[in-house]
């Protein structure tokens, strides 16, 4: 690599990581002004622990993210399976358009339309409020399903179809084929899809703001309202905690995936070896 290449990459990566580093560093700042360094302190971390607004927002966010990610990978698996395995069905193009649309439609529109839809349903059935956790869960699930489908479909299209066909020739029912053959081979993609959609849901602010009701304030909505008012050192502390958690999560997940991949490769190699030995013995 030339000098220009190294400089360009160096400056580029610095640009990508500079904001994250300053957030983390200034979370340990003593001053109320989060940009003037006055001394090392953990006061903002204890401030979070005593901030009931933040604590309850974290709980709401985690609940919604868990529910949305789990629903989204079920729907995403079904959708990805439909697209990659059912080559021909009426409305396939419209189906694919429906799956991809949430990826390109701006979130202000997704949020607004879902909200107005819920209001219309509320008016129709008279006064039951649907806004709040339920609405946010549904809103996040539509967006997350799109992302989950992309990730799972990418893996499904790589899976060797001949194994499925062999299983069916041996009398497996379609559900058994799915359960015994397809599910194990896409498990990694399911894990990364779950992690991705979990973080998307945990991070969503725009559509959530439309759909939330008093009592269902999520962490991003709370952070957004504080960030709009100005700089707030507790936000830095929250940021640092998420960065650390995400860092641990991504590292553990990738280590697990690497180990699983290695184990699978080893098992496969052993099976091939046995098969060749058996063939040689004959």
């Amino acid at each position: 690599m030339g000098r220009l290449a190294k400089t360009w990459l160096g400056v580029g990566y610095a640009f990508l990581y500079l904001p994250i580093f300053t957030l983390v560093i200034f979370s340990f700042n003593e001053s109320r002004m989060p940009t003037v360094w006055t001394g090392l302190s953990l006061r903002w971390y204890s401030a979070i622990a005593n901030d009931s607004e933040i604590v309850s927002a974290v709980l709401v966010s985690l609940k919604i993210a868990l529910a949305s990610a789990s629903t989204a990978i079920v729907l995403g698996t079904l959708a990805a399976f439909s697209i990659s395995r059912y080559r021909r069905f009426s409305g396939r193009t419209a189906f694919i358009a429906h799956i991809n649309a949430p990826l390109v439609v701006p979130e202000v529109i997704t949020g607004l339309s879902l909200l107005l839809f819920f209001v219309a349903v509320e008016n129709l059935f008279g006064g039951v409020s649907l806004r709040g956790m339920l609405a946010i869960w549904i809103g996040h699930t539509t967006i997350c399903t799109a992302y989950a489908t992309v990730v799972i479909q990418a893996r499904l299209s790589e899976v060797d179809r001949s194994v499925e066909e062999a299983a069916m020739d041996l009398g497996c029912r379609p559900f058994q084929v799915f359960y015994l053959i397809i599910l194990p081979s896409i498990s990694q993609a399911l894990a990364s899809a779950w992690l991705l959609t979990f973080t998307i849901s945990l991070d969503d602010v725009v559509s959530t703001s439309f759909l939330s009701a008093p009592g269902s304030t999520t962490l991003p909505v709370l952070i957004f309202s504080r960030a709009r008012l100005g700089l707030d050192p507790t936000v830095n502390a929250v940021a640092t905690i998420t960065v650390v958690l995400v860092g641990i999560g991504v590292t553990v997940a990738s280590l697990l995936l690497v180990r699983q991949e290695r184990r699978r490769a080893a098992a496969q190699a052993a099976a091939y070896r046995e098969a060749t030995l058996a063939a040689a013995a004959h």
Partner: protein
Amino acid sequence: MNTPASCSLPEAPVPGAEAAAGPLARLMAFLRARRWGRKSVIGIPYVFLVLFFSLPFLVVLKISVSEADGVQFKDIFEFSDGTLLMRLHLSNYQFLATDPLYLRTYAWSVCYAAINTVICLFIGYPFAYFMTKARPSLRPILVMLVSLPFWTSYLLRIYAWKGLLDDHGVINNLLVWLQLVDEPLKMMYTPYSMMIGMVYTYLPFMILPLYGTLVKADPRLLEAAGDLGTTPWKAFWLVTVPLSKAGIIAGSMLVFIPSVGEYVIPELLGGPQTLMIARVLWDEYFQNVDWPMASAVAVTMIGLILVPLVFFNRYQSGVQGAGADDEPHAAGGAA
């Protein structure tokens, strides 16, 4: 080859076995004969998305042409004296099309998104190109480092720029301390601070698809160009750039489309003068509580992103097989 056909093969009912197997098995056989498994695999996600994505948009479309009647809306259909009347209230659209402030907001949204795309391309193309020049063992780490910020909160990363660009922010404090400037530069709440945030957020969306196409380019083509007497600079423009066309287009779409509808970045980093259309929609809904107007803005916004999307789809159907590479989240998810 066809799965459903071969699926139903081993299930050919054995005569007599059905009756003996009991009602549950009979039910299963009935469902299988009607291919209910397949129907529900397609149907469940489809119904969910129609119900919670398309239908709500139709509600928006309806409200955008309705007249507000207190907190309710007047029905657009009216039936009296044997005639069905449809009353489409188009005044919102009329207003959007004639009000100079709205027109300017639309123009600026497209403009900011275009500037963002050009800057991302200018920074991202060399970046992706230099990534492919790194040692092969180093490349996965470089890719992971680009996609890693995806995993940390986007809102918090935008907020971080507030602390950096503020009048008394980290950058200004540094500049004053180094005595490069006498008084703090006004960076925050200007179009510049918003552009920095936009480029920062969308740069990875440009880099990843570009890297994806550049790394696949055959280096022998460049060698051949060199053997034929082309200078490296000319070979870059004549060989490398045309080969990465799919990546340039995919990356530009991935930056442009979400930038047009961006709300959080202009709200947190832009000033009161930096108008973006999503911000207008937000204010119409949350501040003016004008639902029909907010809906009309939403409908026109769809039109705004539909134009580049149609071009992109036409290009993609022209290039067979390029479709799998255009999602950055596949790369993000694989990391």
